[in-house]
């Protein structure tokens, strides 16, 4: 019989691999504790039967609220074994949000991690009439609680064991009745507008698309080590962690605490890894900070090796020459290999990132070390859509579509998708499901374009786009983010408009880095304003903009720019306190300057009012050069 569902595949692993090989590993009380396939299967079986005897029915939902731990995986598989679906909830949700997810998904059980999460549920249980039990696995701090709705996971396992004795063979029958089109997981989309929507994923999605994914990226059948770190409430962990664990199979390792990841990763040496953009940036910053505190000799070697590595990996397509290869090997064995070991990345084969943009500099940095970060594009509804391939990775794109997905762009530039393994619609929201489908294509709501070789570049949400003359759309934010990746650009405002034929930019130079650049070239300057208008600095920024322009579609390229005479400042309401640009306000404030950008060129005289910290206002007059690219 073909395996249609994850529980069936888990049972298969139990029969074939049994107690011989390890399914998961968790660090607890300072020691890595192992669970074999037999352990995993039995826990799922007893938990499932326990839930069953507490009243779980086929088609019921079980919400799971906790950090990455084996219990999370058991709970999901237990729910699926009973023909139900799992609903992942993020641990940092407020009680009111938890209530929405549990209520909207009609969950009858919640499996929660610890006191923190149980407290939330006790606060809202009165408003959840369908909720039968709250099952928790970490009893710390809950010793004196005695709410009858609470039950410890170990107790449920015992109930399950007793149930099994009375009902031999029942569990197998339940697993056998599972079908590929059963809803297995409901993943709620964060929903920038309106309430979160629950995307239903079927067993087929988990089984088939993840198998193809695993084969595509070469982690199928390799028995790789994987570090489970991203929240399982997120579709990516559902794919790599929960399904990948059983299908590939991979050994899933759970860190002791979120704070101990860097330590734990080194103990494990995972082969497959997913880190968000922020984590890659943190790693990079950590290395730089540690190197600065290091001994002179180490710093010297590191500073010699890094440029060699960067130069080596910059030559794409062509084969690097003998000298470059030789130097790189030298740098690799002298520095990068040890560095990788320190970071716990010695054994990595496949590393992923998705979600937010990772700066190309960070990607190049790790590439120099011999680590290719695959920055892919996916969504809750459609799963993985594009994936960079080995040997053809480009830091600025998300790679070509995966074999089971077709992608086309609408006339407006929206990314449309047709997948062999789509989601099964939004839970209890047919309208929203249908609204997303146009002629059999799923509308992602994302704006992007393809480069000459079909690699997809995802730029922005359609809703955030701006227009230029001729009705073409462009994404100011995407360009601004890319500009900010430059060490010399601190902030940027990219403008266009329906009456304007091209895109322009207002640039804030980064005083520290540009200052250093100026010092190294013996360029004398007095103030920020003075520095920003130096010819050399304008040339420097022009080069940086040209680099960004290369990855932009023709009509969205920046044609003119100015270096602003002052920095954007939260004290002047130009930025929010979290340093986000207040676009409309700034566009108004610099209205005259922006007009000048679309004028005859030349210089523009500004008389800017400056608000000092004590509330006084002053005026400043400067000439700002309007520059062509």
């Amino acid at each position, binding site marked *: 019989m073909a395996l249609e569902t994850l529980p069936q595949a888990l049972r298969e692993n139990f029969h074939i691999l049994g107690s011989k090989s390890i399914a998961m590993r968790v660090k*607890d*009380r*300072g*020691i890595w504790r192992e669970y074999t396939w037999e352990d995993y299967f039995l826990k799922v079986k007893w938990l499932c039967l326990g839930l069953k005897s507490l009243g779980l029915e086929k088609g019921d939902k079980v919400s799971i609220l906790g950090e990455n731990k084996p219990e999370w995986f058991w709970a999901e598989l237990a729910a699926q074994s009973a023909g139900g679906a799992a609903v992942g909830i993020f641990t940092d949700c407020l009680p009111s949000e938890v209530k929405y997810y549990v209520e909207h998904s009609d969950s009858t059980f919640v499996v929660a991690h610890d006191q923190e999460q149980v407290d939330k549920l006790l606060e809202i249980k009165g408003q959840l009439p369908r909720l039968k039990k709250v099952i928790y696995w970490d009893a*710390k*701090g809950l*010793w*004196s609680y005695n709410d009858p709705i609470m039950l410890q996971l170990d107790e449920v396992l015992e109930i399950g064991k007793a149930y099994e004795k009375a009902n031999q063979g029942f569990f197998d029958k339940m697993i056998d009745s599972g079908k590929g089109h059963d809803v297995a997981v409901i993943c709620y989309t964060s929903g920038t507008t309106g309430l979160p929507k629950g995307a239903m994923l079927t067993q087929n999605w988990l089984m088939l698309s993840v198998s193809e994914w695993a084969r595509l990226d070469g982690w199928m059948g390799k028995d790789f080590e994987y570090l489970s770190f991203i929240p399982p409430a997120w579709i990516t962990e559902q794919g790599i962690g929960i399904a990948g664990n059983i299908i590939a199979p991979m050994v899933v390792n759970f860190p*002791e*605490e979120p*704070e*101990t990841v860097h*330590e734990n990763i080194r103990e494990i040496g995972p082969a497959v890894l997913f880190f968000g953009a922020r984590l890659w940036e943190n790693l990079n910053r950590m290395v730089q900070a540690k190197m600065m505190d290091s001994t002179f000799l180490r710093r010297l070697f590191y500073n010699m090796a890094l440029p060699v590595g960067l130069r080596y990996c910059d030559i794409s397509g062509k084969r690097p020459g003998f000298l470059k290869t030789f130097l790189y090997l030298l740098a690799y064995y002298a520095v990068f290999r040890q560095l990788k070991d320190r970071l716990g990345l010695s054994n990595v084969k496949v590393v992923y990132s998705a979600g937010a943009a990772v700066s190309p500099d960070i990607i190049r940095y790790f590439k120099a070390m011999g680590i290719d970060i695959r920055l892919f594009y996916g969504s809750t509804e459609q799963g993985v859509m594009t994936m960079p391939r080995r040997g053809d990775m480009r830091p600025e794109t998300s790679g070509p579509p995966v074999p089971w997905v077709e992608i086309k762009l609408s006339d407006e530039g929206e990314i449309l998708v047709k997948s062999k393994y789509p989601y099964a619609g939004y839970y209890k929201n047919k309208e929203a499901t249908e609204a997303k489908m146009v002629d059999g294509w799923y509308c992602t709501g994302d704006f992007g374009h393809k480069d000459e070789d079909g690699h997809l570049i995802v730029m922005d949400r359609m809703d955030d786009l701006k227009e230029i003359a001729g009705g073409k759309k462009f994404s100011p934010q995407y360009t601004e983010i890319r500009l900010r990746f430059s060490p010399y650009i601190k902030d940027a405002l990219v403008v266009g408009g329906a009456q304007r034929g091209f895109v322009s930019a207002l640039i804030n130079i980064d005083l520290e880095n540009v200052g250093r650049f100026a010092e190294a070239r013996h360029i004398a300057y007095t103030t920020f304003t003075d520095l920003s208008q130096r010819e050399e600095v304008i040339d420097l920024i022009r080069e940086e903009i040209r680099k960004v322009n290369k990855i932009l579609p023709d009509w969205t390229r920046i044609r003119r720019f100015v270096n602003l005479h002052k920095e954007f400042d939260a004290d002047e309401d130009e930025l929010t306190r979290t340093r986000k640009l207040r676009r409309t306000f700034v566009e108004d404030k610099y209205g005259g300057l922006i007009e000048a950008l679309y004028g005859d060129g030349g210089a523009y005289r500004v008389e800017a009012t400056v608000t000092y910290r004590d509330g006084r206002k002053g005026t400043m007059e400067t000439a700002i050069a309007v520059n062509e690219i």
Partner: protein
Amino acid sequence: MVGIDPPIIEIRKLSLRFGGLQVLHEIGLDVRAREILAVIGPNGAGKTSLFNCINGFYHPYEGEILYKGKDITQLKPHRIAEMGIARTFQNIELFSGLTALENLMAARHILMRRGALMGSLFFGPARNEEISHREEVEEVIDLLEMESIRKKVVASLPYGQRKRVDLARALCMEPSALLLDEPMAGMNVEEKEDMARFILDIYELKKIPIVLVEHDMDVVMDICSRVAVLDFGRKIAEGRPSEIRSDKRVIRAYLGED
């Protein structure tokens, strides 16, 4: 609960003098088996001196301290520690060059039975003993959420976390009474909240009495079952937090005469 539990530490007419300075004056105080007792008072009231008498750093010239009915007034600090009274320090007393884990293992030496020779050979029974001690230490690490600082050198830790190691060190001695000298001094709100939660968890899990000196009145009122107030070496009040809050003598001691 108050009033029913038998006292575990009994302090009778305790007086302490440094030269001509009367530090404690006829203090009488019971610590009951199930309570969190706060000792409060203005600076120099004698709170830490009282602690130092209980755990044997100071020996009073008058009065006595009974622990589980035994007189411990003149015992040495290490004897008292062995008998089960553990404490933390206002100024944190740890081996700052060792890691948090090593500090906690060192705290358990009073519970170790194997000699130095066996220990250094790390063989047979000594090894098993070490492992079982490490297990106990890991329980404490889990309880106080110290996983991420387990292998960090104490000197490199921020103040709030060093306080946590100090508390863990006291706990590792498996005490039957715990004295905490200003456990929350110098902490930010979040660290204080964590510490308060830990104190309650310890109280609930280990079922031991906890005595703490603390200046943060909100904390005292929130987590303590009883409060004793010292002023210039005298006990001026004792009772439930709500009673203490409205006690005229206490208000006067804190705010001065009007």
